[in-house]
């Protein structure tokens, strides 16, 4: 599934749900009414989008720190010849939520999300051991709130 498989209603639906879902007994019915479609139609579309891998998350967005969890962004400078091996080693950790290759000397950037805050430092140590590379740990110090919305 890709963008071309989405019709105008799918796009409206995605854009609308990025703004959040009301906490009501029948939240989808409320959104369907706003969009002028039937609830069943909305449920079918949403299930298709989720099964088609178009959504990375659907439901509650947790505040990791308030749940007692840990969260950080970290980077590695990976030698080109080692890239596949290091990718595999890093992604083997279930705590790695995102991992992106970026154009910079620090070319691997990953987000760790751990159940317990203290686990972040342990996982970073384990990643250093597993990869043989120094980890640049850059936890957030302050968040500047944006309106999270990507119009498609």
């Amino acid at each position: 599934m890709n963008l071309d498989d989405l019709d105008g209603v799918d796009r409206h639906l995605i854009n609308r749900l990025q703004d959040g879902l009301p906490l009501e007994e029948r939240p989808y019915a409320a959104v369907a009414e706003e969009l002028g479609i039937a609830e069943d139609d909305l449920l079918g579309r949403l299930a298709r989008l989720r099964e088609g891998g178009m959504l990375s998350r659907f439901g509650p967005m947790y505040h990791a720190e308030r749940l007692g969890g840990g969260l950080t962004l970290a980077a590695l400078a990976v030698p080109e010849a080692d890239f596949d091996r290091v990718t595999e080693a890093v992604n083997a950790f279930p705590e790695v939520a995102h991992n992106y290759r970026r154009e910079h000397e620090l070319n691997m950037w990953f987000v760790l999300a751990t159940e317990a805050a203290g686990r972040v430092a342990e996982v970073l140590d384990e990643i250093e051991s597993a990869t043989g590379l120094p980890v640049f740990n850059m936890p957030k110090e302050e968040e500047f709130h944006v309106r999270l919305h990507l119009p498609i």
Partner: protein
Amino acid sequence: MSTATPLSLEADRSPGESDAHRRLRALLEQGLPITSQPWATLAEQVGMTEEEVMACVRRWQAEGMIKRLGLVVRHRRLGLQANAMVVWNVPDERVALMGHRLAREAAVTLCYRRPRRLPDWPYNLFCMIHGARRERVLAELAAIVERLGLDDLEHRVLFSTHAYRQCGGRYAREGAA
């Protein structure tokens, strides 16, 4: 259902939290059920009533544990191929002001202050800009630089070339439920 002993960390963290609440949280992490009455669906699975589930989620929202109910798109699949992390080296006394101003820009989807890692990494303000193409992202960035008068700030644009993993963070595991 009381299977294994709850993880001690879990117990320590939320002493007042019942097994049903922990199960609810773990289930919710997999996403909200796509059913007409999703709270009733969850309630049935964890042995609570629909009202109890909704009250619980409402409380978690009020306490800030749940930031919002909604959707996060897999941006590459949706055609937003260009994903730029723009990093800035901002004097410490200006960084809060700059962060707030950048976050107000429509093109900016995340904005954080992070520590410098000198000498390799002098940048302390990070923001994300997504777009269909690199040229569009760079044009957005140029417009922001001009609008906010950021010419004097050292910055770098780190486009991503591959996403090796993009999934939601998991903060409560099934095993902890």
